[in-house]
C-alpha cells in the first residue's frame, strides 16, 4: 500500500496525495561572489606553485614568526575550501518545489539550516512576476511575488531563473486546483503514481 503513496518522497513533509509538478533552484548569479572568490583563491595557489622555490626559501627561514605565518595560511586556506564547497552544496539543497497543492520553499544547508515555507495554492490571491534591471533581463531571472488571500502579506521568491515559466505554471496549477477542488481525482491510485517515477525539472 505504501508503495503508491507520495509521503516524504521528494521532500520532507510531502503529503501522500501530493505530486511534484516542477522544481527550481536559484539562478547561478547568487553564487557569483563565491565563484569569483574561488577563482582568486585558485590564482593565488597557482602563483604560489609557480614560484615554489622562492616560497619554499622564504618559509624555510629559521623564524618562528614565519612558521606561524605558514600555519595561519594553511588554516585559512583549509577553512576557505570547506566554506566554498559547503556554499555550493547549499545552493543545490535550496529548492522551490511546485506541487499540485502548494509551493514549498526549501531552505536547507548541510548542517545549520533546515526550514520549509509552504504556500497553499488555494490561498494565493495574486502572483506577480518581476524582472527589473539590465542584469535580470539579460540573464533571465527575477522575482515571483505572491500575495496571499487571507492576509495582505506577500511572499517573495527571489532569484528565480526563467520566472515567466514558473509564473504560468503556478497560475495553471492554481486554476486546476480551484476547478478540481477536492474531488476524487486527488485520491492516489495504483495507475497514477508509481514508485520512483522521476519528476522533471522543467521538461
Amino acid at each position: 500500500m505504501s508503495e503508491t503513496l507520495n509521503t516524504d518522497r521528494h521532500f520532507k513533509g510531502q503529503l501522500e496525495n501530493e505530486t511534484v509538478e516542477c522544481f527550481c533552484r536559484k539562478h547561478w548569479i547568487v553564487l557569483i561572489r563565491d565563484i569569483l572568490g574561488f577563482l582568486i583563491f585558485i590564482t593565488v595557489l597557482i602563483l604560489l606553485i609557480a614560484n615554489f622555490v622562492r616560497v619554499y626559501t622564504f618559509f624555510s627561514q629559521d623564524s618562528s614568526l614565519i612558521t606561524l605565518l605558514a600555519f595561519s595560511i594553511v588554516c585559512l586556506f583549509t577553512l576557505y575550501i570547506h566554506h566554498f564547497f559547503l556554499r555550493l552544496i547549499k545552493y543545490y539543497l535550496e529548492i522551490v518545489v511546485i506541487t499540485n497543492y502548494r509551493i514549498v520553499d526549501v531552505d536547507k544547508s548541510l548542517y545549520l539550516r533546515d526550514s520549509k515555507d509552504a504556500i497553499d495554492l488555494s490561498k494565493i490571491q495574486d502572483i506577480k512576476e518581476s524582472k527589473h534591471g539590465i542584469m535580470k533581463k539579460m540573464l533571465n531571472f527575477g522575482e515571483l511575488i505572491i500575495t496571499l488571500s487571507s492576509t495582505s502579506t506577500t511572499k517573495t521568491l527571489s532569484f528565480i531563473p526563467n520566472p515567466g515559466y514558473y509564473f504560468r505554471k503556478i497560475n495553471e496549477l492554481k486554476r486546476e486546483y480551484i476547478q478540481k477542488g477536492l474531488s476524487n481525482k486527488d485520491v492516489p491510485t495504483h495507475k497514477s503514481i508509481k514508485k520512483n517515477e522521476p519528476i522533471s525539472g522543467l521538461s
Partner: protein
Amino acid sequence: MALVWITTVIGIISIGFCLMSVKILYRYINRYRFDESKYTLLFGFVRLRYIAAAYIVISILFGVISTVFMFDITL
C-alpha cells in the same frame, strides 16, 4: 614543531569533515530524489556529484600537501 603536528591534526580533521559532509549529502539526496534537467543544474551541466568529487579531491590534496609542506619547512 608543535605547529607541524597541529597542521597534521587539522589536515586529518579537514579530510574527515569533508568525507562526513559528502556522506550526509548523499544520504539526503538518495532519500529525496529529483530528476535533474539542464534547467535545474548549475550552468546547465554541473551535477552535484561533480561538486562532491571535487570537494573530496581538493580536501585530500590540500590536507596532504599542506602537512608535507609544513613538515618540510620546519624539519
